[in-house]
């Protein structure tokens, strides 16, 4: 209603400029989106395009200036690339699924809780990942607090006996960090969706004879599905692309893809630069592919549930 033209106080007659006005009104949403989209498009999209060009051999410092796929060939032929890809998937899938399931439980737990309890469970939200990493290191490292407590309790003999949780092969430290950070995030979103649900649906289910579990499984969960899907999508994308956490908490021998890309980019051998950029693009392409598949699989679920589930 408050179109930009009206903000500026411009008004025209119902007579002459009708088609222009109608066209303008039709354009309104696009104009409103323009600033945001153009910044994102220019920065992000532009960056990707430039990266693509560089990976193909143009604009580079040492390149010949001709288009070539050398960088990509080098990237794909390196076995470490595949290993790191696998590692990224492993971490992202495990961390996302675990945190999603636990978040659902936590959201249900907090559904009827008061403001302070809810707030307390979201305490990790504003914490930078770096700080989280430091905290986990000091907590779970072999010389960390938990190990010392175990030592004091006599559960282990020396700090060598404490299971390796950080910088370990299974990336447990990384997983723990992501659980610690992302569960409150997903819970926040799910709680909001949960509290916005029309209670009449669940009341109706109970009135028709559903037990609390059946009601949850058959009514609440499906209604939550769109929220679960979006939240986990955001989290998956984030974990897959995360750099600082695996860099600091992961083991040297099991790098994730972003860490591998970073290493390639900061390699002193500048000739590796296009390969690094190619790797970065491959990383982005994989993320985009995953999102597309995710969305394609979930579109139907979303369109069914969303319009009616809110409080009327």
């Amino acid at each position, binding site marked *: *209603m408050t179109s930009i033209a*009206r903000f500026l*106080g411009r*008004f*025209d*007659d*119902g*007579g002459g400029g*009708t088609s222009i*006005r109608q066209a303008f009104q039709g354009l309104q949403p696009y104009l409103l989106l323009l600033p945001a989209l153009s910044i994102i498009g220019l920065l992000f999209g532009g960056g990707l395009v430039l990266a693509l060009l560089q990976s193909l051999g143009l604009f580079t410092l040492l390149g010949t200036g001709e288009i070539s796929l050398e960088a990509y060939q080098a990237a794909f032929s390196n076995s470490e690339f595949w290993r790191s890809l696998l590692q990224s998937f492993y971490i992202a899938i495990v961390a996302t699924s675990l945190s999603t399931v636990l978040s659902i439980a936590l959201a249900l737990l907090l559904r009827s809780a008061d403001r302070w309890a809810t707030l307390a469970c979201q305490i990790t939200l504003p914490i930078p990942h770096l700080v989280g990493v430091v905290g986990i290191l000091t907590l779970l490292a072999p010389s960390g607090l938990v190990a010392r407590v175990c030592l004091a309790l006599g559960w282990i003999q020396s700090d060598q006996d404490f299971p390796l949780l950080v910088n370990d092969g299974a990336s447990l430290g990384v997983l723990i960090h992501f659980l610690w950070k992302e569960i409150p995030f997903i819970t926040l979103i799910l709680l909001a969706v949960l509290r916005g649900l029309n209670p009449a649906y669940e009341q109706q289910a109970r009135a028709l004879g559903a037990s609390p579990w059946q009601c949850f499984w058959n009514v609440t969960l499906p209604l939550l599905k769109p929220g679960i899907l979006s939240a986990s999508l955001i989290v998956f994308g984030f974990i897959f692309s995360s750099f600082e956490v695996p860099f600091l908490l992961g083991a040297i021998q099991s790098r994730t893809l972003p860490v591998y890309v970073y290493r390639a980019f900061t390699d002193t051998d500048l000739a590796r630069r296009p390969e690094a950029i190619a790797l970065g693009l491959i990383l982005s392409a994989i993320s985009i592919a995953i999102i597309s598949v995710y969305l394609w699989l979930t579109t139907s679920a979303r369109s069914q549930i969303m319009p009616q589930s809110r409080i009327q």
Partner: protein
Amino acid sequence: MGYLVLQNLTKRFRTTLAVQDLWLDVQPGQILSLLGPSGCGKSTTLQMIAGILQPDTGSMELDGTRLNPIPPEKRDIALVLQRGLLFPHLSVGENVAFGLKMRGINRVDRETQAQEVLRQVQLEGFGDRKPSELSGGQAQRVALARSLIIQPKLLLLDEPLSALDANLREEMQDLILRLHAQTGVTMLVVTHDQAEAVVLSDRIALMFAGRLRQIATPEALYQTPCDEDTARFMGGVNFFPAQAQGHRWVLATGESVMSDRPQTGSIQVTIRPEQVRVSDHPTSTENTFAAKIMSQRFTGTQRRLTLSLSSELVLQAWVNPNRDWAIAQEVWVQLPASALWSFPCGHPADLPLGVSG
């Protein structure tokens, strides 16, 4: 020339023609209802008058001033939406004084005037409350107060009573009529409820599918509707095909009635159920027929009888509620000549616009 004049108003939304060639003429101080089923374009018309939507063609004039180029906030027209929509972040008093604030009236004067208007709608002392603390009826009253305080030239009410409980509706009707008597403001009410329109309005403009069908006093719409759609919308139920030979109309089922209004050719005869007279013995020789009671229903204010004549013609009569009737009871019905009304048979769209009253 009227106070509010609409001419040739048309509005199209993408593929649908919401309002077609509408014209309207409201006298100062009148209450006019825009009546019609959902989707007939009445709310769209209201929004065009208020300035929220721009018509594709046509002009609107208020008190001689052409409205089209004027933005909504300068039109001196107050719109009260169906949902009341009191600003939740402002108190009741601030809500009421909002229009004055926009006009730059200072705080002291605003508050005094707001209190005065709240008194008029019987919500004295409510100024400090929050909208969330009010009931539906109270909120609606505040919404009215909020619009009247700016003394608009025209007050537009979009379905003011449909969100209220039945008993509140009566109160609100009284309030609207009382406020109208006090202020004399010209009002345009949009509603889909014909009973509501009939109670509130001086004149009713009936719309179907974006076009104006008939504009008349409530009485005229009941007694002399321009076509069958209109009659049905106003609650009419008795419709019989017949052949007219002057004052004598022969129904398809065989009965012959005498009417006040001569017609010729094929017609559709109608009589309002309230006008049908039912008695144990025939009370007159004119238009009187033997009938049997098929069913009766008590509605509190009436007794609704379904009667069947010997020719199997079925008639509905709404009579005095005090008397009980038995099923299959044999009675006599009389159809007063003055109450018989007819339409030419044919497609309603072929009929000229009936304008009366």
